[in-house]
């Protein structure tokens, strides 16, 4: 168009930035190794546990988490769902996906909660973080794959990191929200009895923000699950890979069966984290 004197070289700048960043190989290698170790540890444990024991453990966890207001339908669903995944031959894919989801949720938690706390304590930080979080969540998730590959190569680790970026915002937001929602007179009470900011955070703010915060963690987990197919494009193994291959082979059957396995896993993770959250609240 004539009004454009010249195209703004935004893409070039970003490329230059990415290229400049790739020279810190040592730093990125360290991260790759660290996250790789977490991934391997999860996977090692999951591979060690026989299928039947895994199912029993999941059922036991659900049984314990839903001890207030037992839901037998959920237990039945879990039993049948996991047996189906086993039967369809997606067991190892399922544990790989679980590894991806748990690792990225864990990292999202470890980074997201402190960020959320910082955001709650400072209005300026909140002002800056809000648009950044919006950007992280609305940027098409595919885009994260490109620098992730540039920095971390192919495999589980870049998949985990792309998931972390996409899945972290709800944890940050809900931590911030939960802390800011603590009634002002409770904060005054904590202050008037001479609490340090740390004591106030640990004894009052975080416990009262817990259920909101946990809702954020639950959302983060669901978002990282939604990343598994995308992450499979850069070599993150799991159910996503099965879906991705099925698309390539135009095989609706195995596409849907792998998809159903993801849905079963999603429902189990969602219900368990929700039940854990409810179980912690006092009536």
């Amino acid at each position, binding site marked *: 168009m004539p009004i454009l004197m010249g195209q703004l070289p935004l893409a070039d700048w970003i490329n230059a930035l990415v290229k400049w960043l790739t020279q810190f190989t040592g730093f990125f290698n360290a991260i790759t190794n660290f996250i790789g170790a977490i991934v391997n540890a999860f996977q090692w444990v999951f591979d060690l546990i026989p299928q039947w024991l895994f199912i029993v453990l999941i059922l036991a966890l659900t049984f314990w988490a839903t001890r207030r207001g037992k839901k037998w339908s959920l237990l039945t669903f879990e039993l049948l769902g996991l047996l189906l995944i086993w039967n369809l031959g997606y067991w190892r894919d399922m544990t790989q996906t679980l590894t991806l989801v748990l690792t990225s949720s864990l990292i999202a938690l470890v980074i997201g909660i402190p960020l959320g706390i910082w955001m709650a304590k400072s209005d300026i930080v909140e002002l800056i973080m809000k648009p950044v979080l919006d950007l992280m969540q609305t940027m098409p998730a595919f885009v994260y794959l490109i620098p992730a590959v540039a920095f971390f190569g192919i495999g589980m680790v870049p998949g985990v990191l792309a998931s972390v970026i996409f899945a972290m915002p709800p944890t940050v937001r809900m931590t911030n929200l939960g802390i800011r929602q603590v009634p002002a*007179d409770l904060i005054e009470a904590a*202050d*008037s*009895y*001479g609490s340090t900011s740390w004591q106030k955070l640990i*004894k009052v703010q975080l416990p009262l923000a817990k259920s909101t915060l946990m809702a954020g963690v639950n959302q983060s987990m669901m978002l990282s699950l939604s990343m598994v197919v995308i992450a499979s494009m850069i070599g993150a193994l799991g159910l996503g890979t099965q879906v991705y291959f099925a698309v390539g082979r135009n095989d609706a059957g195995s596409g849907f069966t792998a998809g159903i396995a993801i849905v079963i896993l999603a429902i189990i993770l969602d219900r368990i984290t929700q039940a854990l959250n409810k179980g912690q609240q*006092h009536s």
Partner: protein
Amino acid sequence: MTAKVEVKNLTKIFGRRIPRAQQLLSEGKSKAEILEETGATVGVSRANFSVQDGEIFVIMGLSGSGKSTLIRMINRLIEPTEGEIAIDGEDLMTLDKNGLREVRRKKMSMVFQNFALFPNRTILQNVGYGLEVQGVDQDTRDKKAHDSLELVGLHGYDDQYPQQLSGGMQQRVGLARALANDAEVLLMDEAFSALDPLNRKDMQDELLELQEKMHKTIIFISHDLNEALRIGDRIMIMKDGVIVQTGTPEDILTNPADDYVERFIEDVDRTKVLTVANVMIRPNTVNIDKDGPRIALRRMRDNDISSIYVVDNERRFVGFADADDVAALIQQGNRDLSSVVTKREVPITSPDTPVRDLMDQISSTPVPFAVLDDQKHLVGIIVRGAVLGAIAGNEVTE
């Protein structure tokens, strides 16, 4: 008594352009003028007062009068714009974060209008909170918390959660929490305002009872004048961030500083606060050791009364003589009053009895009440008219 808390020129201005607002304030401009010129709101304007050791000092005012801001400046929950707050002579404004925290831990406790109990903690953990943040070990703080709950009359709720308790009980917990860390100054922000009237009255009684044992210095915020008059040793009335009047309940009732205070006290049930001392008048007496029947009769005639109170040389109450009996004595030529002096039928009371307690009897008794002090001295009498006048709001200082 010494000043426990001393506040000098304490000012809080909210909003922007604070230096300009401060300058206008020092020029004597009003809150409305300052708001118009700078957009800043004067919360509290140059408050000066001191609270004595062991007294209950009530700060009164309607909402927006700055009383809540004022009490929060005393422990610096709200940072004052200028002024001084001294506790035991130590200026809090000069303290850094750590110093302030120490003062909050050791010297002051606060009780809140909506209780502000931590819903995630048991009653015992709530009460022990102040000790917990000081790093007191669990056994000691549980014991202290338990004792302090006993003190406010809560038994067996240690392991319950706040939302399982009624409002009145929750505020007892709030009070117990304030008492647990042995602070000498209690800041009570509309502490009983959220309670229903019966609970409120119970809590007021309880506070007075506790105060007799503990002798804390209590700064109590209220918007309820009856409450202020009931519990306050002294009352400070605020309006638009300015202190209008400070004084004892009697001072406020008998000498309201301006129309604002006067309107405030208009609908107070005066019988609750006025004591016999406020409404008694000076009696006409005869001295049984000195005066004879003729003097007695003349005094009665001079004052248009039909009976007279009889005292001894030291003004101790002896009894009461009727005009007819005295006249009979004179006719008999008897010069000794004692044969006609009777103690019968004379109702007796003491100066610090609330007037309300006399209301029932005063309408039925034939002779005025005799007011006697501890040594049985006749200090005054109560006539029906004076009581009615006092209730109606007339000045009765004789």
